[in-house]
C-alpha cells in the first residue's frame, strides 16, 4: 500500500457519503413538504350513537347504483371556510371545536320564540334520510343523515302570517376559527330559504350522520340539509334561525352575486359562470355523471317554483 492510495479512497468514500446525504436529505424534505399538502383520510365515526325513529315520510332514495359514500369520504372532504378553505384540511382544523354548551335561538316573526340548548336539541326525535349532496363546485356524495324536518321546529315557534322567509346564521368566533379571516367571504355565514322551502318535508335539520352525532367538520351540532339545492345552502353549526318578511342576505350571493343566487337550486341547465353544472364527479367514482334537475328531487319540489324563470332566479 502506498501512502497516496489510502487518503484517496477515504476522500472518495467521504464524498460518496456526502452525496448520499444530500440526496437523502433533500428527498426527505421534499417528501415531507409534499405530504403536508396531501390529503389524509383515516376517519373513525367517534360520535355518540343517536336513536332514530323509522321513517314515515316517503322520499326518493338514491338509486341502486348510488351507494352511500363512506364515513371517511363524508368526514374528510368538507367545505367549511370558517376552519379552512382546503377541503381536506377542515377535519383537522375543526378537531377541537367546542359544540357543548350550544345555544340555538329561533325567533323573529314567531308566536313563541325558542332557545334550545344541546340537551333540548337532542330530545327532538330524529329519522335517517339518505340524500344526494351536490356541491356547486361540481362534485357530489350520497350521505345518510340523521335529523328532523325543519318544519317540526318551525311549527313549534308558530310563525306569524307576515313571515315569508327563514334566515339562518352560523357560529363564528376568531378564537376557535383563526383561519376564518382569510376565507375571503363575509362571516358569520348566513343563509336563507323561502318559508315554503323551509317547510318542505325534505328540508332537514341534521344532527348526525351514519347513526351518530355530527362530526365537527360536517357542521356539528346542527346544520341545514336542503337536498335539491347546492351544498353551500346547507349552513353548518347553526346558532340562529330568524323568521322574517324580507328575503335574507346569503353569504355566497353577497360575496359574489353574479355566481351564486339566493335560490341555488341544482340545475344542470344553468352553468356557473366559470364552469358547467351539467355533470358532476360523484366522490368514489372515476368519471363524471350527469347532474339531475333539482338533484333528482324534482317530483317533490318542482311545484315550489312554477312560473319562475330559474335562469333568472338561479
Amino acid at each position, binding site marked *: 500500500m502506498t501512502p497516496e492510495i489510502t487518503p484517496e479512497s477515504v476522500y472518495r468514500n467521504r464524498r460518496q457519503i456526502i452525496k448520499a446525504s444530500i440526496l437523502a436529505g433533500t428527498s426527505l424534505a421534499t417528501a415531507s413538504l409534499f405530504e403536508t399538502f396531501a390529503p389524509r383520510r383515516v376517519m373513525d365515526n367517534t360520535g355518540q350513537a343517536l336513536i332514530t325513529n323509522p321513517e314515515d315520510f316517503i322520499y326518493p332514495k338514491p338509486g341502486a347504483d348510488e351507494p352511500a359514500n363512506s364515513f371517511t369520504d363524508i368526514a374528510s372532504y368538507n367545505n367549511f371556510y370558517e376552519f379552512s378553505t382546503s377541503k381536506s384540511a377542515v377535519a383537522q382544523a375543526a378537531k377541537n371545536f367546542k359544540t357543548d354548551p350550544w345555544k340555538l335561538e329561533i325567533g323573529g316573526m314567531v308566536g313563541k320564540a325558542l332557545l334550545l340548548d344541546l340537551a333540548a336539541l337532542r330530545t327532538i326525535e330524529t329519522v335517517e334520510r339518505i340524500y344526494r349532496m351536490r356541491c356547486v363546485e361540481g362534485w357530489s356524495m350520497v350521505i345518510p343523515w340523521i335529523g328532523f324536518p325543519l318544519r317540526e321546529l318551525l311549527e313549534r315557534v308558530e310563525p306569524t302570517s307576515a313571515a315569508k322567509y327563514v334566515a339562518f346564521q352560523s357560529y363564528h368566533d376568531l378564537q376557535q376559527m383563526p383561519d376564518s379571516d382569510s376565507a375571503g367571504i363575509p362571516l358569520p355565514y348566513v343563509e336563507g330559504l323561502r318559508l315554503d322551502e323551509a317547510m318542505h318535508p325534505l328540508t332537514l335539520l341534521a344532527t348526525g350522520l351514519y347513526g351518530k352525532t355530527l362530526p365537527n367538520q360536517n357542521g356539528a351540532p346542527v346544520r341545514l340539509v336542503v337536498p335539491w339545492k347546492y351544498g353551500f345552502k346547507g349552513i353548518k353549526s347553526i346558532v340562529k334561525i330568524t323568521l322574517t318578511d324580507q328575503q335574507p342576505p346569503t353569504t355566497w350571493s353577497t360575496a359574489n352575486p353574479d355566481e351564486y343566487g339566493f335560490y341555488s337550486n341544482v340545475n344542470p341547465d344553468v352553468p356557473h359562470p*366559470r364552469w358547467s353544472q351539467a355533470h358532476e364527479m360523484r366522490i368514489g367514482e372515476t368519471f363524471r355523471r350527469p347532474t339531475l334537475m333539482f338533484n333528482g328531487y324534482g317530483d317533490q319540489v318542482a311545484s315550489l317554483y312554477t312560473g319562475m324563470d330559474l335562469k333568472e332566479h338561479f
Partner: protein
Amino acid sequence: MKDIPLPNDTAFHKQVLAINALLPVLLTVWDFNRNQLGANPVEFVTRASGVMALLFLVLTLLVTPLRRCFGLNMLLKLRRDLGLYSFYYAVAHFMTYAVFDRGLQLSSIAADTWRRPFIAVGMMAFLLMIPLAVTSTNAMIQRLGGKRWALLHRLTYLILVGGVVHYSMIVKSDLRWPLWFGFISLVLLGYRVAEALNRRAKPKGA
C-alpha cells in the same frame, strides 16, 4: 482519476433535482395505491400538478437573479431541466383535465376552452410551453442561433403570467396561494425590467 468539486458536479446536481422533482409523482402513485389521496383524487392530482408546474416555472425564472446576485453560476446548467419539469407537470395537469373532466373528447376540450375564460388562459399558457420544450435541446439552440432562441424563450414570462392568472381565476374566494405566486412573479418579472432599464442606461461598450 480527477474528481470534480461538488459545487461544480453538474451530473450530481441534475440527479438531486431529478429525484426531488419526481418524488411528488412517486408519492402520489403510492398514496393512490393505499387509498390515501383523499375523497377526490382527480381534484387532488389536478391541483397538485398545476401547482407543481407553476412552482418549477418560478424556479426556472429564479436562476438568472440568483446567478447575478449570488454568483451561483452552477444553476444555469439546471435551468433547462427546471423548465422541462415545469412542462412535464403541465402536461400531467392538462391530461388529467382532458381525461377526467372532458372524457378525452377534443371537441369538448375546444368548446370548454372557448366558453370558460380560466380554461382559455390556462390553455394558452400550456400551448406556449410546447415550442419552448421542443426547442430546449442543444441542437435546436444551435439551429435557431442564441439570440433568436433567447428571444423565443422570453415567452416564459408570458406563460408565468398566464399560469398565475389561470390559478387566481379558479379559486372561489381564498386568494392567498395565487397571490403568493403573483407576488413572486412580480419580483421575478420586475427584476428583468429593472435589468433591461439598467442596460439601456449604460453606454455601449461600457
